[in-house]
């Protein structure tokens, strides 16, 4: 209800700010990159199966075998106002995987939070499905109040052949509004991608992503694992064009530390770090 009381100048400023957030990686208003592994492959992550699938494609959680927990931190364009903290947890049961996730973005004047609960299950040997329910809250500076809403998200994962896996996900499938009295909606994203395993050491990922507001983005990434302990990643994405790369290291077979960064031509570097542990 406070949205109408914005003076024109402030609206413009905030819109610019939101535009910046959204256009840069196509994530806006709570949909942000979530693991350094995904980011270092330019977020072509819709077909990747790790605990972070909670935030990429809920169906892809089916691949995990152990209880797993992950935390992440990103500093976009090295600006302290654009920090993201994330936490995910997934637990596999006999027929399905249950997941929880939380993501915090922003600073004092603009903060958004997303808490979600998801479930994924195998429909057949090759096809699995995931659904997720998220609670979002956006809080602006005290004069402008806050808003909260629910969104739904859905994903599919198809193990096409031994080497090829397709993934598809839709975020904010119900096109939820931010407030009831203005036609402002949380953004909706559709992602379709695949993973192609070249060998035990190398795989490629590619993806197209359409954000309802922005041009289609095409992404391509690769991971190279010369040994069981270390891996290197790289990627490139269009709209806007950016590079990314990173390294990951696994120790004691259950801890994984990933470092990654994306590079935007005008805005510079976005470092990202994430850590995950497999339990039991």
């Amino acid at each position, binding site marked *: 209800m406070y949205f109408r009381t914005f003076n024109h100048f402030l609206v413009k400023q905030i819109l610019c700010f939101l535009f910046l957030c959204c256009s840069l990686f196509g994530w806006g208003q709570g949909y942000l990159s979530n693991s350094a592994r995904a980011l270092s492959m330019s977020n072509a992550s819709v077909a990747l199966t790790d605990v972070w699938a909670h935030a990429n494609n809920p169906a892809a959680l089916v691949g995990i075998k152990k209880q797993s927990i992950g935390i992440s931190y990103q500093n976009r364009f090295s600006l302290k106002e654009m920090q993201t903290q994330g936490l995910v947890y997934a637990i596999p049961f006999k027929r399905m995987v249950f997941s929880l996730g939380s993501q915090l973005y922003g600073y004092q004047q603009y903060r958004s939070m997303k808490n979600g609960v998801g479930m994924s299950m195998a429909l057949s040997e090759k096809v699995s499905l995931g659904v997720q329910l998220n609670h979002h809250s956006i809080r602006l500076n005290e004069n402008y109040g806050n808003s909260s809403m629910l969104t739904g998200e859905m994903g599919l994962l198809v193990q096409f052949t031994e080497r090829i896996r397709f993934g598809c996900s839709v975020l904010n499938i119900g096109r939820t509004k931010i407030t009831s009295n203005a036609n402002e909606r949380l953004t909706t994203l559709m992602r379709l991608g695949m993973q192609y395993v070249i060998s035990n050491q190398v795989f490629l990922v590619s993806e197209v992503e359409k954000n309802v507001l922005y041009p289609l983005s095409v992404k391509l990434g690769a991971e190279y694992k010369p040994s069981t302990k270390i891996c290197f990643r790289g990627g490139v994405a269009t709209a806007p064009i950016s*590079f990314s790369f990173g390294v990951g290291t696994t120790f004691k077979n259950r801890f994984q530390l990933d470092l990654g960064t994306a590079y935007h031509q005008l805005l510079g570097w976005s470092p990202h770090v994430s850590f995950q542990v497999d339990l039991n």
Partner: protein
Amino acid sequence: MKYLVLLLLVSIGLTASAQDRGEIIQQRIEFISEQLQSENMDLTNVIEQLNYYFDHPINLNVTTGEELEELYLLTGVQINELLVHRKAFGKFISIYELQSLSFWDPQTIQLVLPFVRVDDRLDQLHITWKEAMKQGKFEEYLRYLPMIEKKAGYADVSDSVRQASNKYYYGNGDRYYSRFRYTYKTNISVGLTAEKDAGEQFFRGHEKQGFDFYSAHAFFKGGKYLKSAVMGDYQIQVGQGLNLWSSYAFGKTADLTTMKRTAIPIRAYTSVDESRFLRGAAADFGYRNWSMLLFASNKKMDAASLSDSTYDDLEYISTIDLTGLHRTTSEIAKKNGITERIAGANLRYVNGALRWGAAYIYQGYDKPFNKAIQYYNQFDFRGTSFSSISSDYSYVFRNVNVFGEVSKVLRPDVQAQNGWAMVHAAMMSLDPRFSFGILYRNYQKDYQTLYNAGFSEGSNTQNEEGTYAAFKWKLASAWSINAYADLFKFPWMKYGVDAPSYGHEILIQPIYKPSKTFEIYGRFRQQLRQKNSRDSDGTVTEIEDVLQRNYRLNMSCVLNEFISLKTRLEYVTIHRASNTPEKGMLFSQDLIFKPKSSPFDLSLRFALFDTDSYDTRIYTFESNALYVFAVPAYYYQGSRAYVLLRYSFWHSCDLWIKYGVFLYENRSSISSGAEQINGSRKSDLLVQLRISL
């Protein structure tokens, strides 16, 4: 029986490669030309290299790897793997052993096969005068390109008019070329090249000495301590091309292996580009792992000079002309206006997979060079002389090849303009089916040397920062994909760009080749560059994004032993804010007819093109006589057709005749100024004769 099968296999291999010879070379040239986007270039050296190794395949049991690099078909990782394999398992017994190397995929082997062999014999070098005369090869090329449609510059005017204006040419419109060369293996080369450009005089007037341009060399390679030496005209290549690289180099191509420069210290010069070479003497000495290259050059170049009004005797040079054309009064006046002096030393160390080099180059002129200051060129070199230093490296570790170069200019007079440049890169074979490369370069705005060819988007190794990544992926037996992305920034203004700017280039090329006789590929290329807006109000010129997209579909097919076909469809669009969107398209069909036992070869093309403007022109490679390169731009609306005939006779002579014609729609004149042709037809004729003994 076993031997028979082997023989059969080898002969199949060889015939297949014989068909590909032209094709491989053609592809390389296309790569280069697309990058240079220039209609007139001379890449004789590159082709000579491939042609030479085709006739004299590299012996894999002897090679040190340097020759393999000169092919431009292999990565450092692949070469290193071969050397390591040979060390571990001994000499190759058969060429088919290459298949056991993990980074040599069948496609690479296929490409390289025509240029390599496996032999037990050692190539000992004992040059005796008798043998050199007996086994050496003499070659003479004569080329004649007459003017067909008369151009405005050849109008019949009186001498006084011609003298007063720069619109009329002194000579006739024909081009003559002659090249004589004697070679003995790759070890000795002696040659003389002469050329008269269209519009230049011949044995009269300003050209009493006959041809306008002469180039000669005597070259030796292969001594124990004197590795190579040259007198006359030559090329020098150092490191990754930042400091000194007098010849052309590959730019960004669909093939990632060309991101690495392979420097060949000394090379004889046999082309007719009248500025990009060195003239003098050079020698490369070697002792164990160390080599030392020393060279000096003193060359006259075309330049316009101005004299200082306050000091009558002080003369300075305002422009240097690199075209090498001497047709009009002003062009003739510029001839030999300045002497360029270059000298340098390059120390190199090789130890297995490690290579390191350091170089010092002095470069300067006999008169002060002082071109007019503009905002964009204010950091360029002005004065009499300067020097530059550099260091380069290359190291292969398992499946990764890292290489790079760092260079700095030293201008003692202008301390503030001592810019540096660097390039660092890694090329990896992550899997036999997947190679990946990444390159970072940063060239400062005040870095400049006279001849360089560093990896860059712009035409010079100057004022640029960027990252390039590429991969080559063999998906399945018939499918492969090549792709690259390049992001670059120009931290200072450029010619035609009145602000710092940035841009990118993306290319993706899927290739489907189900058999040796059929190939189809698609190519998408997107280039974004920033240029001055055309909507300038005369005060501040803004820059705008210029987005160019090229779409290509290319199909080639060997129908039978005699006939092959090639079809190409290309479409280009350009979007910019200050102009309506423009597009262009080209549709071409080639037919190549090569009867096996007949002395005749025939190539035919018919193409239709339709482009909205000159900006949306499409460059496309044309077959031509040996060592002639033409990548003309097709623009406006019309058709292009050519016939190229080759006739071999008396075992030692080849004759090429090419006739081509452009027919334009809705155009009553072509080109402008002295080059203007009245009418809608532009044709070209080339006759070349080769005699080799």
